[in-house]
């Protein structure tokens, strides 16, 4: 049971750490926009710049 004397302080430290991370997340605006990230994930720039056959003039019909 002696391990409890160590585990309880350790758990306190962990809670403190998590609380700090949460507060940091709020401060840095992680909770500001609940809508935009859902869109931005669809628009990554790893699509090739020149996509042949995907040309603007062809899309008009």
């Amino acid at each position: 049971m002696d391990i409890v004397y160590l585990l309880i302080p350790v758990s306190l430290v962990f809670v403190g750490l998590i609380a700090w991370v949460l507060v940091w997340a709020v401060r840095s605006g992680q909770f500001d926009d609940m809508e935009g990230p859902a869109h931005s994930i669809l628009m990554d720039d790893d699509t090739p710049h020149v996509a042949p056959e995907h040309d603007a003039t062809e899309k008009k019909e």
Partner: protein
Amino acid sequence: MSDSPGLSGAPSFCCFHCGLPVPPGADYPVRFENTEQHTCCRGCQAVAQTIIDAGQGAYYHHRTALPATPQLAVEELKALGLYDLPEIQESFVKVEADNVREAALILENIVCAACIWLNERHIASLPGVLSVEINYATRRARVRWDAARIKLSDILKAVADIGYVAHPFDPGRQEELFRRERNTAIKRLAIAGLGMMQVMMYALPTYTATDMTDDIRALMRWASLVLTIPVILYSAWPFFLGAWRDVKRRTLGMDVPVALGIGSAFLASVYATFAGHGEVYYDSITMFVFFLLTGRFLEMNARRRAGAAVEELVKLIPAATTRLPRYPAREEEKIPVARLAAGDVILVRPGETIPADGTVIDGASTVSEAMLTGESRPVGKQIDSPVVGGTINQSSPLVIRVEKVGADTRLAAIVRLLDRAQSEKPRIGQLADRAAAWFVALLLVVTAGVAAVWYVLDPSRVLWITVSILVVTCPCALGLATPAALTAATGRLTRLGLLTTRGHALETLARATDLVFDKTGTLTYGRLTLRRLVADGDRDARTLGALAAALEAGSEHPIARALRQADAAASPPPAPVIASELRNHPGLGVEGLIDGRRYRLGTSAFVAALAGASAAAPPADEEMTWVALGGEDGFLGWFGLADSPRADAASALKAIGRAGITVHLLSGDGGKTVAATARQLGIAHWRGDAQPEAKLEYVKALQAQGRIVAMVGDGINDAPVLAAAAVSIAMGEGADVAQAAADMIMLGPRLTTLADGIAVARKTHRVIRQNLAWALAYNLVAIPAAALGYVTPWMAGIGMSASSLLVVLNALRLSDFKAGTPSDPEPILVNA
């Protein structure tokens, strides 16, 4: 995105970047994905080139709406340099360590998520920019940069280079306030949640373990205390603050019992921890605070949603607009809407929002007024048409002379009135407020009594039973019941096109038994239309129509307008007929020469004088105005004209009738006309030739029978009658909203909004009643249960939070009300 494939490449005669037509002779090509594309001007060419060169051409595939034509005015770029001056930066730039600066910018011309992507990429790629985040919902960008490596004006210029406008965001705005409030709430909630979870971890073994030594138990208690302190001092702080405020003002709010409950439980636990004996309640305290904060947080968001209508209206006005300072010269300048003045001439492109009230002086287009009137069909606008700020130009550019700006606009008046209505509490709400205050006082007395009784019976249970009672009661549900429902309902109604200007209006409308229409014009279009054409013999009706329209070509008389409109609408269109030597004989008719033959249009005697025949009798239908057409060789035909009921009048009245409301029609018009309208619409109670005094008497007589009268009028000429009614509704279409002295104002042309209004009012009434009943029932059950010791403090915390949340969510149902009767299909409305 897939629903608008044309957007990635507008047709070749349209500008590749902005979609406007490419003027003949313009040659501003750009190369995109191995194909030559044409743009309409140097600005668009530069922007498109910048985007493609930066490797961000994917934008043209992803975008879902066309951007505005870029404004690269030289003066404006120079003006951006002003933002580098420290004294100007002072107001909106946050100075961090060393050279790091942070500013909030508003981005304009953001039309879709692809714009956000483009801007984020582009700004982030600038050397010296440390971070950039753009909020899609609010269009606000937060940029951090190193002042030693880049100037703010360079960032703003970079944004302008890709066709957007960025300008500093005013930090004093409400939005920012809400954001901070929300972030604080999340932080408080997070701390309370973590504390709750961990304290529960320590508490559980002490409840279940049988072989725990005393020093481990003590260690757990101390650990719990350490975790509870931040929960009390940070998370629960608003409750103590609120309670302290209440005590100082000698009022009793809901924070007082909560603070008392938390405070006493905490102090007792601290004492037990130090003394080493007695009960601790850390788990209950933290859980209670967590549930309470969760309830408040959800409620805060729900309330914001319920009150979003006003904010949405305010947001309708754009931040910047295009002014034509030397109209009719076409040179443009971009200015903030705040600097617009009456008399300015502005250019509004398709897709842009009209920033102020004014009159069209050039161009023809359709405008969506849905946000203001609830009318979903676009309204046609041409020269001399009035336009209202906050509506959206749809099809082609409009040049507008501004007449009213800022606080004088129709939109500002609507917002003011709505604010007033939402801040006024009807009787039932005031009653609930007073009851809530008494309730708290009573509660404290009862709690003291219960505590005394339990002290005698079982002193060990006194504390948590007292805490439970204090916590479980929910006077806030009582206080929230009415305002939450009213805010949600008035917001929804405004979006449907019925503006509530008085707090009591909804309550009274819900109880109304009679609906009195004060004018024929409220039910009809108020203008003549051609209803019947009786051709003499076997003549072609279309030809007659064309002849009549030609004869009336120059006249602005209502009859002339109706005949011309009917002719223009005929299909297939008749061959154009031109009349010459037109002469107007006032009171009789018009005369003119067509293809060398003389024609007359007017009264039967006037026409008979030319036709030679004796005056023929008009067809037997006295509800119409009959006009005769004749030539030198005799009568040709008759035109029957009448004012027609609005397309949706019948369905609206049917819906109102179904709601059990008797409809009356009072009108100053002639008895026959009123009778015809009443018969067409199935109105049983009507009176024609009614003077204002007669109308007033009629309403008073109804009221003497105990009826509750709702009155519909135009809101300006009939103020006394409207004032006499229990609730008055003005048809504010086009009229001055601010002057209409009515409890409610119809903003759009649809009569069905009246039926919707009654339905929403009744539903609101029900919701308020449900909320009050719930608040009462909950407290009546919960307090005795707590007093008898059946409720632990954490259960009390859940109960109370759930109770107030339920009230707000119930009210929120009102904001999802679906309009009952869809508007009848009709061609685009034209108000000239």
